[in-house]
């Protein structure tokens, strides 16, 4: 071009799209690379150190001793308990979320569509602590739930339930059932929206075809709808599983004195000052989620995120 352009920078960028790309990607990469990955590696490195039993100081020698400590009975209990809780919460969340998502995707129209949509989205974004707090109110001895059971003259049902070992306890607010209920409540919206998104994409004609070919509604559900909703369910389960596994606030406020991974990490790095063991504990969710994400990716769940 003969005439003098006033924008040499634009020309350069237009001719060299790779340069533009580099300019775009560098700031976010630097941030995530330094702040996030840097910190993550700092943590991983700590897990290969150990704590000196006599002095209580960290010895900076590479060792797998700290990981071996994870396998001690009391620590292994924490790991298994947490994974069991995360699985129970995930499965129940899928069961409770499915009808809501299915109704919203298939039957809700117009105003009801918006109601269902916001109905799942507002709790998803509303304050986590407020949600936990509301359950503290509900499960309290003088709270709504006990009042409800008493008013309905069903207090004996509750007592019989609390007498069951493991899931019961002195009251709901100090039982595993209480912890489970709060987890289910807090993470449920994370399950509804991805399932709904995947169900929205199922063409109604496919369900009609299934019915026309003689499938009963149950069969359509089992062999047509569920497989198509599976990526959504997996996408939701990534959140419910990961969030339950790393949480240390819910079990601290509602639940028994037995700890979960999050609480162990928090205590070991804080009051106990055993950062290597805290780091080793923190590596477990990373590994579990790594495996989980790899499996989810092969099931095509990332399109639903």
């Amino acid at each position, binding site marked *: 071009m003969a005439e003098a352009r006033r924008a040499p920078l*634009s020309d350069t*960028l237009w001719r060299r799209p790779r340069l533009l790309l580099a300019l775009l990607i560098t700031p976010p990469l630097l*941030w995530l690379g330094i702040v996030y990955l840097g910190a993550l590696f700092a943590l991983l490195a700590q897990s290969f150190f150990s704590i000196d039993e006599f002095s209580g100081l960290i010895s900076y020698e590479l060792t797998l001793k700290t990981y071996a400590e994870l396998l001690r009975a009391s620590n292994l209990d924490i790991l298994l308990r947490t994974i069991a809780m995360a699985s129970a919460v995930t499965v129940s969340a899928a069961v*409770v979320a499915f009808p809501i998502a299915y109704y919203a995707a298939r039957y809700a129209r117009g105003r009801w569509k918006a109601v269902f949509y916001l109905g799942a989205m*507002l709790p998803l*974004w509303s304050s986590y602590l407020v949600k936990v707090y509301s359950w503290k109110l509900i499960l309290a001895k003088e709270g709504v739930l006990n009042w409800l059971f008493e008013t309905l003259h069903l207090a004996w049902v509750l007592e019989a339930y609390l007498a069951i070992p493991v899931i019961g306890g002195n009251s709901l607010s100090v039982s595993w059932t209480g912890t489970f209920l709060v987890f289910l409540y807090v993470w449920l919206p994370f399950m509804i929206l991805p399932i709904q998104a995947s169900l929205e994409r199922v063409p109604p004609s496919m369900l009609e075809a299934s019915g026309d070919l003689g499938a009963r509604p149950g069969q359509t559900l089992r062999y047509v709808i569920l497989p198509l909703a599976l990526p959504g369910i997996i996408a939701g389960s990534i959140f419910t599983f990961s969030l339950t596994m790393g949480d240390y606030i819910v079990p*601290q406020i509602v639940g028994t004195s037995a700890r979960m991974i999050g609480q162990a990490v928090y205590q070991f790095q804080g009051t106990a000052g055993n950062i290597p063991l805290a780091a080793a504990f923190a590596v477990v969710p990373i590994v579990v989620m790594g495996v989980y*994400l790899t499996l989810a990716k092969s099931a095509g769940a990332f399109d639903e995120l």
Partner: protein
Amino acid sequence: MNSKASLGLKIAAIGGLLFLHLPILLIFVYAFTTEDKSYQWPPPGLTFQWFEVTWNRPDVWQALGLSLRVACVSTLIALVLGTLCAAAVARSRFFGREAISLLVILPIALPGIITGISLRSAFNIADIPFSTWTIILGHATFCIVVVYNNAAARFRRTSASLIEASMDLGATYWQTLRFVIMPNIATALLAGGMLAFALSFDEVIVTTFTAGQQQTLPIWMLEELVRPRQRPVTNVVAMVVVLVTFLPILAAYYLTRGTDTVAGQGK
């Protein structure tokens, strides 16, 4: 194939929605109760006095101020970084593209406690003292993905030929950015920003590791949850927090309603 939902499905769906909403509504009732020693239900009486008490509490105002400052700055950082990242990933194919989108998701796909303890041990190693900026560092990191998701979805819908046409007609990159790209992605950015703000305003798990002695509003609430001392004030604060977070979420929803990707589907 029925075009009407069966009764069982209806009950399960509506029951599920009630399960999600009744507990939050309960807090609204508790904010007005006259009982201040226990969580007694039903409330023995109703009063407005706790709103006045809360209004005159300097610690609540301080925590609120810190939370708002942190949320504003983190949202700004996340807006810049998230948009840049989305623009790069949406417009071209390059080596490591998949890895970058995974890297962006990672801070929310991994449990918050991991981000928290990682940052704290990094601060320890680098000898960085706790300050407002250490909180912001953590918040901006997990807010990037929210902006990124919204912006990336909009970039996918914005046709690249618009940008080419603008450049062919002699516009510079700045002009194209100002008159073609920005109008196209503005609402998505605004929605993403609102969601990032709500996410940061409410965050507690990462914050407990990066705040030191400072109190954001969620940390103030957490202390009240663990050791309840001022139940009525906590009730009022909880109710206000619900209202404050609902507004940006509703705004984000209305800003992106009608497009194929409505903001707020993922957190």
